[in-house]
């Protein structure tokens, strides 16, 4: 199975607008299940269409299995119909005038596959995607989920080495999303196909992909495993884009941030102690306690929102500095909260939930403070193990 190489690819629609895709390079290994994730308009779909050959490059090179499909500087362009790359459109793009069976058969006919074999393949696909009985229906007579299965069957029938999916789960309802997700993972295992899909939905990305490439405004922000992306965001954009509810961001110079960093046994490197440097705190990595002896930062509970099985708790942190800053923070927990609105509690943060970003948004590590380090090391595992205890 092939690996895909994107080498410095750019796409610029009009000279006076910033490029839709700006010098993106990535290597998608053979058999990978890769997700390109980003907000709408970040150029992720353009990348997918570029790999398929439907969108032309302004600069750069795309190669599959070492063979250039696009190479602007060498003047190489392989048209989409010759690439043998499967693409499932977000709209599914089924041909409305053909039945399900004929939709699936179309590409095979173009390959001049003998009729007998073709029939067998269509039947196999229909069985595999569980759309039996729909063979003679037209796309307009199918539900959204069925249409997507047909679109997948149509693409998989061609047995493509590379499968591209455009927002594969976004048009489906919650129940269908789960079953389709399982389906896609199974297909990936069975076929060993290299799959690349794009989405704006982090849930979709985190649950499906083995690797995620985060994009913003046409540029690549970070590539890594879902855990990498979540636990070690390369910059502020990635940290803020991933996570629900979103990560809390506090100026490093605020007393809350200073306090939380200090009691965890860290200190801020001198180059990051400016106003624009930010401390990110994952909501689920915060800890609350009513006990002042934990040295937590005093906060007020301003709102408690149940979301069914989990709670989102809004905190108000009044800084004690001269400027009287006030920050609101979000904390999530899966244990029923024992506080009421307006109650005073003390806030701490687990070290793994803290992320420092320099003023230009790049990730920076917190330095370990020798004086308090011992305290933190002793305290942290304890905190993580028994959250409830600590809260009580």
């Amino acid at each position, binding site marked *: 199975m092939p690996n895909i190489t994107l080498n*410095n690819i750019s796409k610029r629609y009009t000279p006076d607008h910033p490029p839709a895709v700006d010098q993106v390079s990535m290597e998608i290994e053979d058999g990978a299940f890769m997700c390109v994730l980003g907000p709408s308009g970040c150029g992720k779909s353009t990348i997918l269409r570029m790999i*398929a050959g439907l969108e032309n490059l302004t600069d750069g090179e795309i190669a599959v299995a070492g063979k250039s499909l696009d190479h602007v500087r060498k003047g*190489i*362009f392989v048209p*989409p119909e010759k690439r043998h790359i499967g*693409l499932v459109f977000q709209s599914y*793009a089924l*041909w409305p005038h053909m039945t399900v069976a004929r939709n699936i058969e179309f590409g095979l006919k*173009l390959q001049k596959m003998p009729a007998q074999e073709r029939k067998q393949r269509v039947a196999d696909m229909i069985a595999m995607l569980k759309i039996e009985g729909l063979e003679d229906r037209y796309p307009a007579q199918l539900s959204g989920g069925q249409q997507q299965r047909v679109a997948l069957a149509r693409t998989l029938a061609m047995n493509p080495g590379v499968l591209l999916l455009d927002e594969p789960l976004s048009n489906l309802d919650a129940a269908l999303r789960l079953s389709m997700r399982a389906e896609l993972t199974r297909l990936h295992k069975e076929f060993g196909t290299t799959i690349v899909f794009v989405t704006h939905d982090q849930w979709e990305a985190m649950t499906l992909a083995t690797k995620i490439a985060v994009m913003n405004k046409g540029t*690549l922000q970070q590539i890594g495993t879902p855990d990498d992306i979540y636990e070690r965001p390369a910059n502020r954009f990635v940290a803020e884009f991933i996570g629900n509810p979103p990560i809390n961001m506090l100026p490093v110079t605020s007393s809350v941030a200073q306090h939380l960093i200090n009691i965890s046994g860290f200190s801020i490197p001198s180059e990051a102690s400016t106003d624009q440097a930010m401390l990110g705190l994952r909501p689920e990595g915060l800890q609350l306690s009513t006990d002042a002896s934990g040295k937590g930062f005093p906060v007020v509970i301003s709102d408690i929102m149940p979301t069914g099985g989990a709670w989102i708790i809004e905190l108000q942190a009044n800084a004690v500095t001269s400027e009287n800053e006030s920050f609101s923070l979000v904390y999530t927990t899966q244990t029923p909260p024992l506080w009421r609105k307006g109650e005073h509690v003390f806030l701490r943060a687990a070290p793994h939930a803290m992320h420092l970003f320099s003023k230009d948004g790049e990730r920076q590590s917190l330095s370990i403070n020798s004086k308090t380090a011992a305290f933190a090391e002793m305290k942290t595992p304890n905190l993580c193990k028994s959250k409830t205890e600590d809260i009580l």
Partner: protein
Amino acid sequence: MSVMTDTACSTAWQRWRYKLEIAKRAPTIFIGLALLFIFGWLIVAPIVNMMMEMFTVQTGDEMRVGAEAGQFTSYYLERVFSSRMSSIIFWKPLWNTLMVAVISMVLSMIIGSILAWLLVRTDLMGRKWLSTALIIPFMLPAWTFALAWTTLFKNATIGGQPGWVENMGYQLPDWVSYGVFPTIVIMTLNYIPFVILLVGNALRRLDSQLEEAGKMLGASRPKIALSIVFPLMRPALMSSALLIFADAIGEFSVPYVLGLPVHFETLATSLYRAIGTQQTGVAAVFAAVILVFGIATLALDAWMMREARRFAIIGSKGAMERRQSLGILQWPATILALVMVFIGVVAPLGALALSTVMHIPGRFEFSNFTLDYWIGTNLDTIAMQNGILFSSEFWAAAWSSISIVGSASICAGILGLLTGYIVLRSPLRVVSVTLRQVTFFPYLVPGIAFAVAFLTLFAVPHGPIPALYGTPIILFLALIADQMPFASRAGISAMTQLGSDVEDSARVSGAGWCRRMYSIIIPIQRNALVTAVLMPFISGIKGVSLFIILAVPATDVLTTFSIRLIDFNYTQAANAVVLMIALIALLGTIVINRLTRTGLAQGLES
């Protein structure tokens, strides 16, 4: 965060080479350029050439102008606009044209809007049936009604068989029988369906919740009509008024049939006369004037439509259709609608149909009825000794009508769909914008002016193209060009509705361009293609302007055949031929309506 360090830009040559490589794989650019070439030759060249003829000394005019043929001259402009003759040959016809156009526009707007409101917004009795019946005149050639008028109201001024009314013993003054009055009546009748379609469509889209919201706030009914409904309808009203005006300026057939006996001339008939007397230069000036009016009006319309988009009505999805009860007005309203059906459809078609089975017009005696004009043989006349169904001339004309118009429409339909495809898919914006505008251009040019433009270009050999005058080819080409607005509109709107995903997915499945066209685009657009062929066919089969200028007896078609019959006073036979044309047009329209439920109204809009 690209890790590559090689950030120097690719050179222009490299990018160009890459683009060329792409273009080779997708013929969109080449087809686009080919279409531009075709339309440049068929649409732009004739008009530009005609504009130049205006300023060029024509062969045969050397003595009069006092210069060599082919030299620059302002003689024709002076002759038309400021010579001793100009009040007769230009200003009077211009006045007539404007008067007829404005009055018939106003009348048809008033009557048409009322009818549209009755049909769309009230509980008028039989409105389903009426809304079809009232549209029928739109499907028929305008001069059908002119002929019906002469059949009924012709007086003894020009000899030949008198009309029914005279035959019944009433003397009719000339102003009733010919000239400005009947022209206005006929043109009004002809445009009413147009207003019903356009205004009715706009009314249908107008959410009645908007009116109800006004009612809830305590507005009275007149207040609602004046400050909610009318402002929202204004774009549709203005648009139909302007389209009618532009069309009326170039109308040839009605004033030709009704105006000639009393020397009632409009710009279009003057133009025809100038052609008939070999004054090509003067004819070009007339054509240019009509063209300027057409372009100015439609530019105004385009500008106003753009303005109107500012308050596009939102929420058409939740539009509610609630009809107003007419109450005691039910009967007068129904009677009004029925009267309009009678005047606009039953009377004219009935008169024409009856006239073809009567020896002497208007005498309702059994002995006077005959089928001779349809199926008679060895009749006691100089020409037309057989009824039209047994006349070889009729079948020859019918055949050439159908073959010339039919083949032109098929070409126009295919070109229209291709145009739609290129307009939406061309990577070069210039190509798509130019194509969209060039194909719409003939709509701004009244048929008669377009015909003159074609005549000036193709009557003489140009390069490898021989002189085409007198051949069916010139008609064929002129029809294609003239019908491109309808065909390209149909093509563009059909392609707009078809997202590019459907084609792209065929592409990644491995289908080349031809295969995609054949297996995906054309099958999906089958109905649109049929519409793009039929719309031009209907409009071509009932059209007069192009044929009367470009056809010669050797290329006789149904319209010129019937007009020749009128000129020779074979009224019954002429009427029979016209009925046959109407029948063909009607059948075509029914087929379109079957295919696309609102095809007609949509085709007219924007």
